[in-house]
């Protein structure tokens, strides 16, 4: 099957030495977990994982043109 394109957005110190936003290609149905590990993150570093503006689990599988946003544990108020 043809690969899918997913837009990945990184925030806070996740950007350091990586990128802000980039399109990556994956096999169809790839899980968030595999994308995260593939980028060299540890799962324990993840604060918030959002797909198209909705909170998602690590098992969530991605579709063509999804946007995956990854935040470390940060907060404010």
């Amino acid at each position: 099957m043809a690969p899918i394109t997913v837009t990945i957005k990184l925030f806070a110190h996740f950007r350091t030495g990586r990128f802000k936003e980039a399109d990556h290609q994956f096999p169809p149905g790839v899980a968030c977990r595999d994308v995260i590990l593939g980028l060299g993150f540890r799962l324990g570093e993840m604060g918030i994982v959002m797909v198209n503006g909705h909170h998602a689990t690590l098992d969530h599988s991605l579709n063509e043109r999804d946007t995956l946003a990854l935040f470390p544990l940060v907060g404010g108020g």
Partner: protein
Amino acid sequence: MDKILRVNMTDLTTKVEETPAEWAGLGGRALTSTIVAKEVPPACHALGPNNKLVFAPGLLSGTAASNSGRLSAGAKSPLTGGIKESNVGGTAAQMFARLGIKALIVEGMPQGEGWYALKVGKDGVTIEEERGLLGLGNFAVIEALQSLLGKKTGVIAIGPAGEMRLTAANISVKDPSGKIRSHGRGGLGAVMGSKRIKFIAIDDEGTPGIQLADPEGFKAASRIFTKALMDHPVSGQGLPTYGTNVLVNILHEAGGLPTRNFTHGQFDGHEQICGETMHDTIVARGGKPRHGCHAGCVIQCSQVYHDQEGQYLTSGFEYETIWGLGANCLITELDDIARADNLMDDLGLDSIETAVAFGVAMEAGLLPWGDGKEVVRILREEIGKGTALGRVIGSGAGAVGRTYGVTRVPVVKNQAIPAYDPRSVKGIGITYCTSPMGADHTAGYTIATNILNVGGQVDPLKKEGQVELSRNLQIATAAIDSTGMCIFIAFPALDIPECLPALIGMINARFGANLTGDDVTGLGKSVLKLERAFNLAAGLTSADDRLPEFFHSDPITPHQAVWDFTNEEIDAFWDF
């Protein structure tokens, strides 16, 4: 035994009183709200002689406990018509506590046109006539008092906005670097102005300091508490590095960043004003990315922001202010927002109320969207000089809406809704509706659990679990606001099991008490109920526990979310 200082501005007399037994175990918000509820007639005019302005340090203020230096101010609010408590960092809480001052109560109102200053020290409080500093901004007042009374003097002051009794006026408190933190919300600066007090100077020379009932127990609990604050990723790393402004990008992604006076949930210019950009700008210009608002803060979410020439522009540059003038008013130039922030500090204006008022003013066509230079001009030339337009904007979002016939006016109990859209982050909508303070995100910060995955996860877009979440957080917050702790200790408290017991352990060791977790929850509940009872007696009803109509009728992008709670669902908040 700590004492109560009472100042009567009608006959210009002062008294030192014993602390009544029923107030002995109270501090911060629990004490200011208890005193306001007991002594202020709920139906009084908030700017008249029967309102009282109460200051109280938290239970742990003045001790070595991390992040315990918050001062509560309370009164009937001229903005909401209900009870108000607003707390702040700075140096005043710790000075009050070391002076053995449980609370300072200011009552009455002078007859004539004269202005006054209060001087607080180890012998109590005195009233002096004040002429020289009238009309000056907060920075000039602090500078003058430091050269007159010494660098270490504590200062609580109002700017021109408070002198004009504008309902967006705040009360400023000097921080350790001679800058300003604010009792921001609810127009407490107008109450201080109505008492004709320009400033309160504090001298804590010659005080014995705080006697702990159990110094060893205190030290042990304090160590565990501080460790929890440092270990949690939000309080230990996130807040110190990026400040609160890291939220711009998070709320943008989640579709909860109110944009163009609450018409969209995302802002195209988010990258220009976000915490990441701000952090890099601060570092490049030689500012300070981390900075504490009081001695003893180990989190240090604050920062010092410089201009292009490397000169000080502002500090304590918070997400809510940056959102308010940024996404909400479509201003993308961070330097303009910083300049406006500094002016609001100087004039003594709540930066949330004022920023939301500007959004409504832009909707009314009074100035173009995104025009940061015009915002700065209006602050300086219109509000600063007390023109009619300036006074309308300085009276808050509700006042601007009523004056110019705008229907999209984001307020609850006439207080501006801050930086989280209640349609797409529903838990915070319950807090806005039900908090006795009016729309206030800090009263029950559901963003933690709705968005940040702290204290579990409750889906922000669904109704399930939101009322309970907001209730639990509002109860906990009312208790934390009474300890003198900064609310950001809630992040570790929600996730690290040793944190809350250590906090209670410190209170017990300070006073020789035997409080349990249930007692602390009980305190939070009773504070909320007391505040609600005051509001009902003041004439507010459950019809005031509602969001404006447009949140029901206008869906917000990108999730097309609307506010869909029924009145019964909202009112169930009070079932406890």
